[in-house]
């Protein structure tokens, strides 16, 4: 690529004034920026389709929508060469085992994009006995794309959102780039196919529940929020009166204090902005 084609404004990242004649050829930048820029511009997704959403994913990569405009058309059939897993469809309990394995085989840095309602939260099949209600129950997700299926436009938007996310990662912050920490990263625990799918992270909870059940004690059940049935408003004198004079909102004793701090913060920010403008 000649330097002319390379649009340097994406890479340039400094206040340092460059002489006008050098601006087309030289970029002064930070390591984070150049590193992120090269990564985000060559995301290689894994060639891996799960369900109906996969058809739209192929559609996105194909002739009309043309994923290669974003440097992402190099779909790799092996996890070893891919940066991005597009979870394109319903994740079933039978399939989550291979998916977690594949994820563990991907080299870091790696990202997951949950495509469609199913991958994000179970979608139309959430209640199904063989359906995992969202890939995020087992693996960390970076971008969720809603839709059933998301249109190719939506998927592209999601991919651009992922690029933005990468742009924001700083090499100086280990929370952003944990793969540069000391020691190897933890692989995601691989679920086990038992009488139902078993998440190894929940072993203790499962064991405790089984003990309770064996002793004949009631197992712990989460409290549901109460079912609030909307009752049709009956216009009575009491409700009318209540509507006319809303009950006094109980005064929070810390209110004054909080307000004062907020105003002070605002004033500081204004001063800073003004200084910058000058």
């Amino acid at each position, binding site marked *: 690529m000649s330097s002319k084609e390379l649009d340097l404004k994406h890479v340039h990242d400094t206040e340092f004034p460059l002489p006008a004649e050098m601006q087309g050829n030289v970029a002064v930048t930070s390591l984070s920026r150049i590193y992120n820029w090269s990564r985000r511009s060559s995301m290689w997704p894994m060639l891996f*389709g*799960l*369900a*109906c959403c996969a*058809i*739209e994913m192929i*559609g996105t990569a*194909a*002739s*009309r*929508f*043309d994923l290669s*405009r974003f440097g992402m058309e190099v779909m790799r*059939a092996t996890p070893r060469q891919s940066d991005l897993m597009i979870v394109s*469809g*319903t994740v*079933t*309990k*039978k*399939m989550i085992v*291979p998916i977690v394995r594949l994820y563990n085989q991907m080299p870091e840095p790696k990202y997951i994009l949950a495509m469609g309602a199913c991958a994000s939260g*179970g979608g*139309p*099949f*959430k*209640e*199904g*006995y*063989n*359906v*995992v*209600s969202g890939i995020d*129950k087992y693996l960390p997700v970076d971008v969720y794309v809603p839709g*059933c*299926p998301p249109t190719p*436009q939506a998927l*592209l938007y999601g991919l651009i959102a992922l690029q933005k996310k990468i742009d924001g990662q700083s090499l100086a912050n280990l929370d952003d780039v944990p793969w540069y920490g000391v020691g190897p990263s933890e692989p995601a625990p691989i679920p*086990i*196919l*038992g*009488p*139902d*799918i*078993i*998440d190894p992270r*929940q072993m203790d*909870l*499962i*064991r405790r*529940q*089984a003990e309770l*059940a*064996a002793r004949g004690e009631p197992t*712990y*059940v*989460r409290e*549901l*929020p109460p079912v*609030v049935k*909307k009752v049709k408003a009956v216009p009575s004198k009491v409700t009318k009166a209540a509507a006319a004079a809303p009950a006094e909102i109980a005064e929070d004793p810390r209110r004054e204090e909080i307000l004062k701090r907020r105003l002070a913060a605002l004033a500081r920010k204004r001063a800073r902005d003004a200084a910058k403008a000058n």
Partner: protein
Amino acid sequence: MVDHAAEPVETLKTGTPEDAAAYLLEKFPGAVSADTRPGFQGVIVDPAKLVEVAQTIKDELGYDFLSSATAVDYLGYGDHLEMVYHAYRISGGTALNFKAQTDRENAKLPSLVGVWRGADFQEREAYDLYGIHFDGHPNLKRILLWEGFDGHPMRKDWKEAYYEDELKPFDSRWPDGGGVHRSEEKNVFGKNVRYPADFDLAKLTDISEESLYKMAGVDVEMHAMDDGVRTDTLVVNMGPHHPSTHGVFRMIISLNGESINTLEPVMGYLHRNHEKIGERNTYLMNMPYTDRLDYLSSMGNNLGYAIAVEQLMALGPRYSPPTYRAEVIRVLMAELTRIVNHLWSIGFLLNDLGAFFTPMLYANNEREKILDFFEAASGSRMMCNYMRFGGVFKDIPERIKSMATMVNDRVRDYDTMQFLSQMINERLPRFIDEYDRYLTENEILRERCIGVGVLPAEDAINLSAVGPLLRGSGVAYDVRRAEPYSIYPELDFDIVVGKNGDIFDRYAVRMQEMRESLRILRQILPRLEQTKGEPIVSGTQAYSPRVPPGESYGRVENPKGELGYYVVSYGDDKGTQNPWRYHVRAPSFINLTALGPMTRGMKIADVVTILGSIDIVLGETDR
């Protein structure tokens, strides 16, 4: 067994299902009885005589094609499990429907694999989901779920982890919508899981993988090849994550050198419980779910389901059939869907042959044009949810419009009829000819397809193969002709058949079928013009109609083959709002029965092409 040589066999083989039932009643007194429940057809057979009766049905009565075999759980209404079979004649006509009942505790029936090999996977499915043991089945293992799963989930008393209520709409959501919650908040584990009460984590062994390999009959003996070279058996696992298995499909292949000894398909990686969810849904709620079966041809799926439920509704007093315009639009959509599907499947067959993506990109261009029309008509490119009971959801729009939402996109605004006629009369025929010219004479395609993956006609029928797979073997069986529906009887088209039943013939059948579809569409266009402005739906459209009790088996010729819906309305004499049983006879699923026999003795390199030539889609295979 056939000692009725004196019978006038020929008339037996052409009679109606009622004649056949009468014959069976006479021949097997005591073992066969008529099904007298209101709205039900066919006969109920004593399990002890099931195989014998089935053999008679096949040999003497000529019902050589077993379309569907599925189970129903009548919990609370006699407490039995019932196996329902639909057999057809390959020469056409309506179904002979026979059933066998067994009790729920010790569910056991004889297997019919010896009579129709096409029953193989369907019986395994019934075993997996209902727990019916089939005596004499060669390989009775779970097929959709994994070995070691707790219980048989399609039974009515089996509750899923996120169970909320028996039937939809749920009280918590309707009519006030006050109690909407997330199911994970209700579940202790925060996940869609549930463990049996006596579950002991310490004793758990994961047997799912091991049993798969055992099932594949993997042995490690040395074989002597024809030329005397001694080789090992090699086991190759393909999938569920493999670029050429068309989704999450898996095969365990044992190889002798490069040729295939056995091939065991493993599925269920996309089993998302259509049928269980379908039994909780109201009838109409199932319509968008059918889109997600064969997600490449959602319009065709819609049509099959609409027909099945309409057949049931016709049993009631206040039924009016779909209007003529609705039928015209339905056929328009169904045939466009066929073209969409065949474009896609030929494109991917070429992918499997190694022509990586270029042919597919060309085909996709045309497909996108049709999707534009679908989007304008239904609001969605792929998941159209377009048909309704008694008609369609909306008339086709005056103009096809879209905003430019992307770089490289153009504002589109066409007159719909002009767009259609240009597409059907010019663009698509030109493209198909061009595509044909590029591909059909291609040497690589011919070398790799001719004579590979041969399925003889008798085997195809016996294995319940359907669609281009069956027609490629030279059997002219097409539901549009065999048991016509909608307005197909008045349309002029040919059934395309192959000769040798190899990959090339299936490819050629698909190519030619697109031309036949265009021929149908050319007859549809003037009908569309003529019926402009007529109603697109008959009667009043109830959001949750009451469907009279009974059973129906509605089937259509989908691009992938015969798609059938077995719907039972039961439990209320006045009619029900939710189906008691909703079963999908998926062509992709049952066609896979033929994969093992077709690949035996072939080379490993041909497996993906043979699979590609069946044209499966996993949403439908696993449901």
